[in-house]
Each structure stands twice: as C-alpha cells, then as structure tokens.
C-alpha cells in the first residue's frame, strides 16, 4: 500500500511544483507584455503583441485545466513574442520628453526610449510625428502627402483596388484582364484564350481556306462527310464558317452543288449528293446565311472533273462546289 502511495505523492508534488513554476513564468511574460504595451507595441508591433497576449491567456487557461505541457508550449510562444514586441517598440514607441529644469537631478533617470529628431523625408516633420516618414508631406497632414499613388496610375491608393499595378480608373485602378497575354485586353479580344495580334482584334492570323472568285468560291480544303452519309465531319467546320462569312458579307446568291463519283447505283449517288448539298446549306443557314441566298442541288456522278477509272480521280469527283449566281442586292 505504502509502496503505491509514494510514487503517486511524488508525481503530485512534482506537478504542483511544475505548475507553480509555470505560473511564475507566466507572470514574468505578463510583465514583459505590459512593458511592450507601455511602449505602444499595439501600433509598433501589433502582431507580436497580439501573439504574446493571446498565448499568455491560453497558457493560463491550460494551467487552470491542469495541462502543464500545453501551458509550457503556449508560454514558449508568448515569451519570445513579448520580447520581440518590446524590442520593436523601443524604436518607434512614444518618445519621452526630456525636461531641462528637472528639480531633482539626483533621482535615478527612468529607462526610456531615446529621443530622435530625425526627419528622413526632409519635410520638416520629425519622424516621430510623421505618419509618412519616407514620403514628404505638409505638417497639417502629419507629414503625409495629400494622396498616395504608388503605381502612378492616377487612381489614389485609397480607392485603388490594385495599388501596386497601374490600371485605368474604369477598372478601379486595376489593369484590364488579359488571359492569353497578347497585350489585347480580354474586353477587346475576340480570341481571349488564344494569343493574337492587336491588328486582328487579338486573334492569330490564319491562312484563309477559301478564295472568292467572280463566279464561284474556291475551296483549298474539300468538305468531308461520313462515308455514304450526309453528315459533315468536324474538320470541315472551319472552311464552312469562312464560306458562311463570305456569303453573308458579299450578299450573293450561291448554288451549292453536290457531286459523287460513279461507284454504286446512279440514283443512290444523286440522292446522296443532294442530301450532302442540303446538309451544307443547313449548316450555312445555322451560321447566319439567309436561306434565300442558297440553293442546293445534287448532281450525282453527272459532272465529273476527273477520270473515275482511278482512285485519285474518284476522290476529286466526290466534292461540293459553290457557284455564285448573282448579287442579292
């Protein structure tokens, strides 16, 4: 029985002693925090002072809860923070005023921060009174200029949402966004995700896929369909978009002609070529061309442009052509 009581008693005694020591440590940290406060640490070292005060409170709470380990950890954070707060505040805290005709010169001189009359920005307001010690400003504004504008964009920092980056006032002092970084702001960029040149509204210059002649639109790339069907393949969308734009801009009437090679039954080929011409017309109408500007005709194998006896010739014969019939206006 006695054997078991002794270690427990030892532990309790050690815990009490440890708790007492921690409380003493907390008191000394509290004293340092008070010194920091007196030196105006709330303005000079706000983060350090807050860290010291908060951790001091947490340490005391942990001690009340009987958690010495945690209390020790909090004091370990509070003590250096308080020390830093004092150190940082000594340079910028409230200055002591020296009284020349002090009545009792024998009395011990209180420890106080040294008085400095430095005026770093030379504006006539000593740094101790200067709210802007690095920028000249009149005394009536406590040494600060009327407005600060660090990025020099003409939007004063108090209303500038990007005080470090120049930007127009229409965008609250921030530069206009430019996602593709091509120097053309997204608001003016027709291709905001693709770098391009300013003379092409931020879009890259592309080689044109069509040439508009007097009587026809020449294609540099043939329109592709699914085999034996009238479904346009995606790789032909660009050329069709250009055709649509050209027809819209030129205000002409265009005949869309579908042609096939001579493989298979003639009637089926005519039907297929008509369906393909119709599909192209439908696409162009979807792209904003007026339906009355377009006619679709399927000729089947009637009008070959190459020999159907070779594979290359048959490939050339399977095609869509665009004939310009007349101007609509």
């Amino acid at each position: 029985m006695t054997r078991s009581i002794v270690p427990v008693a030892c532990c309790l005694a050690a815990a009490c002693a440890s708790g007492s020591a921690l409380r003493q440590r907390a008191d000394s940290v509290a004293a340092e925090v008070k010194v920091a406060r007196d030196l105006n640490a709330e303005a000079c070292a706000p983060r350090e002072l807050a860290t010291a005060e908060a951790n001091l409170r947490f340490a005391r709470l942990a001690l009340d809860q009987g958690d010495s380990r945690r209390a020790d950890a909090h004091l370990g954070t509070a003590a250096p923070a308080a020390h830093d707060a004092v150190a940082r505040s000594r340079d910028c805290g409230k200055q002591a005023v020296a009284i020349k005709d002090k009545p009792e010169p024998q009395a011990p001189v209180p420890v106080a921060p040294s008085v400095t009359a430095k005026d770093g920005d030379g504006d006539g307001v000593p740094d101790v009174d200067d709210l802007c010690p690095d920028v000249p400003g009149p005394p009536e504004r406590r040494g600060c200029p009327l407005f600060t504008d660090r990025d020099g964009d003409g939007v004063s920092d108090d209303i500038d949402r990007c005080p470090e980056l120049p930007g127009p006032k229409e965008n609250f002092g921030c530069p206009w966004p430019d996602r593709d970084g091509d120097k053309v702001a997204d608001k003016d960029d027709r291709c905001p995700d693709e770098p391009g040149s300013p003379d092409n509204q931020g879009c890259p210059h592309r080689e044109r896929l069509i040439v508009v002649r007097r009587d026809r639109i020449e294609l540099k790339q043939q329109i592709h369909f699914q085999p034996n069907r009238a479904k346009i393949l995606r790789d032909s969308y660009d050329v069709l978009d250009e055709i649509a734009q050209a027809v819209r801009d030129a205000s002409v009437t265009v005949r869309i002609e579908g042609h096939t090679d001579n493989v298979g039954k003639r009637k089926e080929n005519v039907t297929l070529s008509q369906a393909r011409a119709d599909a192209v017309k439908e696409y162009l109408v979807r792209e904003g061309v007026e339906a009355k500007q377009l006619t679709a005709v399927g000729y089947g194998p009637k009008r070959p442009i190459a020999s159907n006896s070779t594979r290359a010739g048959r490939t050339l014969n399977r095609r869509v052509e665009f004939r310009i019939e007349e101007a609509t206006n």
Partner: protein
Amino acid sequence: MALRGTIVACLLLGCGPVTTTSVIDDADGALLRARAANADGYALYEATLADLYLAKAREEQGHARYADAQALAADALRFAQAAGRKASERRTAPAADDAAVSKR
C-alpha cells in the same frame, strides 16, 4: 417517464456543442468580414488576436471543453468585430491615415 428524462438529458448535453459551434461560426464570419475590409492592413492587432482566439476555440472544442471554447470564441468574435470596425473607420478616414497604414 424514463424516455422523457433521457430525451431531456440528451438535449441538455447537446446544447454545449451546438452553442459553441454557433459562436465559433459567428466569430469566423466576423473575421472574414474584417479581412474583407483589409483588417490585416488597418487593424492587425485585433485581427491577429481574433485569429488566434478562434483557432484556440476550435482546439478546445475538439477536446470537448465547450465552456472554454465558447468563451474563447466569444472573445474572438469581439476582436473580429473590433478589427472590422477599425478597418472600416480607417478606410474612410483621410488619406493621411491610409498612407500611415501602407507604410507599416
């Protein structure tokens, strides 16, 4: 009767976590609002205190010490509100104050 007693006991026990969570949420919201008003620039002391107290409140809540957690969260809320108020005041104050803050 026993069932009713059990329900009442459960409700009473449940109040601690619920109330604490509510105060922590309030403090969290207040701190977010203060930060949005640039409290880190204009009221760093209050914002730091609110931040630390809020973190500690969450820690205490994690250890199921709801009374302590609630007290810490209430303090965090108070500091966050003070930070928000100070930041708003200083934002609307004359340029001299703003300039002073930007130099810190």
